[in-house]
């Protein structure tokens, strides 16, 4: 097992000179490092794999069901059938987003990471960028393929370009931003199970609470929760909002971007001040 350190001959007293040159490391190096990290753990494969399976499975099954139920082509865009697959798949993205940071705390890897790259901002930015791009690309591409198959199965008319754009790039951005929010929460909580539970609560609780708000005095709160809950906002991108009011068009993306930005800013401040 032991290999003696290669003999290099004793140096004179004084500083040791390494043959490896020192240059200023930058964000690109941190990105390369984070890309290696995210592709070399099993949880990435599992979470994103399950998401792809969910999007395909639910998307295609619902298209088959719709085409079997009525011989007429459906009135509303068939793309909206992708909603349920993406909603369930977003749970996987939440898990991966949390794990990207929190697993480093769980394993103690964070200490090694921050000794290699002491700039907290650079580490967090690199993690966020790599994660965001990976999730965005996978969700968008999967949504596009599923959408094309659904259109073929349900034999629906051609959806408008705007519909297509929102159901693919829009959904991809929304899910990736939701993932960033989870990543920020993961960095704040530093505990995988805790952060994942909180994020699932954030997604589900507003809708569940709203269901139990029968009282007249709570009417406005109930409407707000229904309109702004995360599933409803995702629905807006598919033109199937829960109620008539609330965010419309591309607004859910701005709201989610704001939330993710706030969580990341808080995570950065916490990372910068806290002991590791």
């Amino acid at each position, binding site marked *: *097992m032991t290999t003696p*350190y290669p003999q290099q001959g004793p140096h004179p*007293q004084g500083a040791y000179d390494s043959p490896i040159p*020192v*240059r200023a490391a930058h964000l690109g190096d941190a990105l390369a*490092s984070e890309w290696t990290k995210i592709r070399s753990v099993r949880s990435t494969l599992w979470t994103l794999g399950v998401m792809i399976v969910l999007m395909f499975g639910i998307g295609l099954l619902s298209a088959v069901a719709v085409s079997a139920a009525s011989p007429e082509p459906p009135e509303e865009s068939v793309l909206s059938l992708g909603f349920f697959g993406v909603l369930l798949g977003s749970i996987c993205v939440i898990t991966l987003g949390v794990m990207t940071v929190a697993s*480093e705390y769980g394993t103690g890897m964070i200490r*090694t990471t*921050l*000794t290699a790259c002491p700039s907290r901002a650079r580490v967090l930015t690199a993690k966020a960028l790599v994660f965001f791009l990976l999730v965005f690309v996978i969700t968008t591409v999967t949504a596009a393929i599923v959408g094309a198959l659904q259109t073929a199965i349900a034999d629906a008319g051609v959806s408008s370009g705007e519909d297509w754009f929102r159901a693919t790039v829009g959904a991809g951005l929304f899910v990736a931003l939701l993932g960033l929010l989870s990543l920020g929460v993961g960095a704040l909580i530093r505990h995988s199970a805790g952060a994942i539970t909180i994020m699932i609560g954030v997604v589900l609780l507003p809708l569940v609470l709203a269901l139990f708000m029968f009282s007249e005095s709570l009417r406005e709160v109930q409407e707000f929760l229904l309109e702004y809950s995360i599933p409803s906002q995702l629905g807006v991108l598919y033109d199937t909002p829960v109620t008539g009011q609330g965010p419309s068009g591309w607004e859910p993306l701005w709201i989610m971007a704001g939330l993710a930005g706030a969580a990341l800013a808080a995570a950065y401040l916490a990372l910068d001040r806290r002991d590791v």
Partner: protein
Amino acid sequence: MIELEGLTKRFGSKVAVDDLSFTVRPGVVTGFLGPNGAGKSTTMRMMLDLDNPTSGSVRIDGKHYRELQEPLKYIGALLDAKAMHGGRTAYHNLLCLAQANRIPASRVAEVLDTVGLTAVAKKKTKGFSLGMGQRLGIASALLGDPEILMFDEPVNGLDPEGIHWIRNLMKQLAAEGRTIFVSSHLMSEMALTADHLIVIGQGRLLADTSMADFIHQNSRSYVRLRSPQQERLRDVLHQSGLTPVEAGNGTLEIDGATTEQVGELAAEHRIVLHELSSQRASLEEAFMQMTASAVEYHAHSAPGHGPQWAPRDKGA
């Protein structure tokens, strides 16, 4: 060169590191010694900018850790062996560190070879034994071929062969002109590897001295003797200017005498001796004496045994 100036760390009302100032010089192995809970790991974490000091500062070649461009090329550290992601292979754990500091990927294979882990490079690290984890940690410290190396309790959990390997590695690295800073709670270990010694207890600096000086000053040598004619023996010793000290069980101890001197004296006065031996207090004893008041965790044992070391158990 690492310089600490008035480094202090408080956790609530507890002072973990108390106004610590010392310098770690290049080209030698500097031992960092203290009982459990003395603040060694906290000090090392502050040196690496993982913990923020309450006050004071650490300079590495005149710079703060965060100002280092590619820190792994200046300073490599083994903090705790398990500071890696267990679901990642040894190779990937090192590769992501190398990439963050633009160290060529070929270097990963080199350091894995150095620590003897080439055969398990593609294995996930969660299956590693403590010794293998320790070797992987050392590989990550060597990755940037740094001028300064810090090891926190490197021999912990290693088998005798591994301990021997680490000792030689540290001496070799120091001979190449590197700065080596190594912590331990075992004086005997330090006596074998360190050239310079820094002792702390309850966060305070207790000694900052060369190993040779420490041995010279702290290893008391004395003569121990037993005799059935103790009263006469005492008188004789006093007359020759020696001061015997009662040490219990009927033994006497005399500082600064030789066995020859005492033996001849006894023979001259026809005093029977049952024991005459030359004794040397171990460095471990000297260390225990120095830190006796500063040991945080005392095990409660039979009275009269002095300070005992609590079993080593460092949670995270």
